[in-house]
């Protein structure tokens, strides 16, 4: 489990991470979404001890970060950090020397899965292959906790699918995974939870299905003008478009749909919102959509 509480990081006048709190339960895949500069990478740096937070606490499986935490934690940075002059095999050897829980069979399995040539130097690998090698190094000790910053960047669609399947498998086997990505489809496919950051703050966090359930939209079409919408909770946001209305009904969607029917709507439909809709709403600053 990853428990983040009140994490704050400031660089001069810039509040990069602002009172971030987030729990990722064991066996869960949590997608961390946000626009560029939202604070995701800085949050990861604070989690891993690369940067010192100004406030807040991070606990992994109930314990604060200490060197031994990395015996069961894997990390993939935003840009693959590799020794350009070492071969793939030497990188694997580095992991064998530096990770007590190194699993040689797992390493060979992953090298085969990503079809890497072990004799190739890191500098000769494509961007996608470098990402694959970084993933292998993060996975060779079968970590209980995985933190991945854009893990599928540079990978072709087939390899992206392989990576996501690896993550889902790891979570099924009890690993806790925190993953950031700009590709919402990847998060939608692999994650069961999501946290959306904006200006350093977590503005939405929760189980993806619950968030979708709680943010349904009811669309109704009337034959003529839209009548006065009596009997509908005034707190519900209503958009009028010609003879149609859209109500952001959240958890009251069924009741609102029934009310629209009673008001004479000729067509009513209740729509689940996509993760992308949720994301765009959460990061919308009113001027960029």
């Amino acid at each position: 489990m990853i428990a983040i509480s009140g994490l704050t990081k400031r660089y001069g006048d810039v509040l990069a991470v602002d009172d971030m709190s987030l729990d990722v339960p064991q066996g869960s895949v949590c997608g961390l979404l946000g626009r560029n500069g939202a604070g995701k990478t800085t949050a990861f740096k604070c989690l891993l001890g690369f940067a010192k937070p100004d406030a807040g606490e991070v606990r992994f499986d109930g314990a604060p970060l200490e060197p031994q935490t990395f015996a069961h934690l894997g990390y993939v940075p935003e840009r693959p950090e590799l020794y350009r002059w070492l071969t793939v095999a030497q990188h694997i050897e580095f992991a064998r020397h530096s990770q007590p829980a190194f699993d040689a069979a797992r390493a060979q399995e992953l090298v085969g899965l990503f079809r890497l040539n072990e004799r190739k130097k890191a500098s000769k690998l494509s961007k996608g292959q470098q990402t694959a090698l970084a993933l292998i190094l993060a996975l060779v000790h079968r970590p209980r906790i995985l933190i991945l910053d854009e893990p599928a960047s540079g990978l072709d669609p087939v390899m992206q699918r392989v990576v996501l399947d690896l993550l889902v498998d790891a979570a099924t086997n009890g690993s806790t995974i925190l993953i950031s990505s700009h590709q919402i489809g990847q998060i939608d496919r692999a994650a069961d939870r999501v946290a959306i950051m904006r200006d350093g703050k977590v503005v939405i966090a929760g189980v993806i299905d619950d968030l979708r359930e709680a943010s349904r939209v009811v669309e109704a079409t009337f034959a003529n003008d839209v009548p006065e919408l009596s009997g509908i909770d005034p707190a519900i946001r209503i958009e009028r478009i010609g003879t149609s209305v859209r109500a952001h009904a959240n958890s009251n969607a069924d009741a609102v749909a029934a009310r629209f029917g009673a008001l004479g709507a000729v067509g009513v439909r209740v729509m689940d919102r996509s993760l992308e809709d949720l994301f765009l709403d959460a990061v919308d600053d009113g001027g960029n959509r």
Partner: protein
Amino acid sequence: MEYVQILRARRILTWYTGFLVVGLVIEAISFYAGRGKNVQDGSLEFSMLAGGAVIAALIIATLTASGLSAEASHTTALIWTRPAERDVIAARFVAVDVAAIALGYVIMLVAMVLGIAIIGGLPLVEFDGARTAREVLLGLGGAMMWYAVISVAASRLPGRGPLLAGLSWGLFPILAGLVFAHNFPVWLHDVIYALNYLNPMAWMGGMTPQRDMSIIPLDVWPRIFGEWAIAIVLLVASVRLWSTREA
């Protein structure tokens, strides 16, 4: 943990040894091709060889000193996610480098002895244990100090290690030479003199144990002690600075 640094040091020493072997082969070919003549007169103190071989230690020190800086620049995510204290990781890196410097020194000394043997001069070499020990400790202390100064200067400058290492070959001799310039204001001369306490060339004194050849006005044993003490203090500082920086 230090696997990569061992590979780095091995690569440097392999190239270095390769150049020395090529040099010895050229010497042997030219000598045995008939142009050479066996050395039969005079004597050669082994301590002079020991002092001369320090150049190898200085070269290896310069080439390895940027290791921690390189780690900070490109591979923090790898090296800081190992299950070990960062101080320990850095200290083991430094230990590998120190061993490489000493090994580079020994390789050079062996190459020099072989070079003399090729021309038949080995019987002329005279060995003075005490004098040789002083030369070895003074020279290696200077190399360690050289390594430590670069290491501490680069510890918070990710990726700048090689630049600082290169600059050191210009900066240290100039700094030592400026002590003998007498047309500076007194205060500037004092500043230059004070800075030379961090200049390994000033402590080594032209790689000779003679007091009158050294900028630092101490006898040889206090100079040896001073060099090693400064090197150790700066190495501890560089390890701490590297370990406690933010990525």
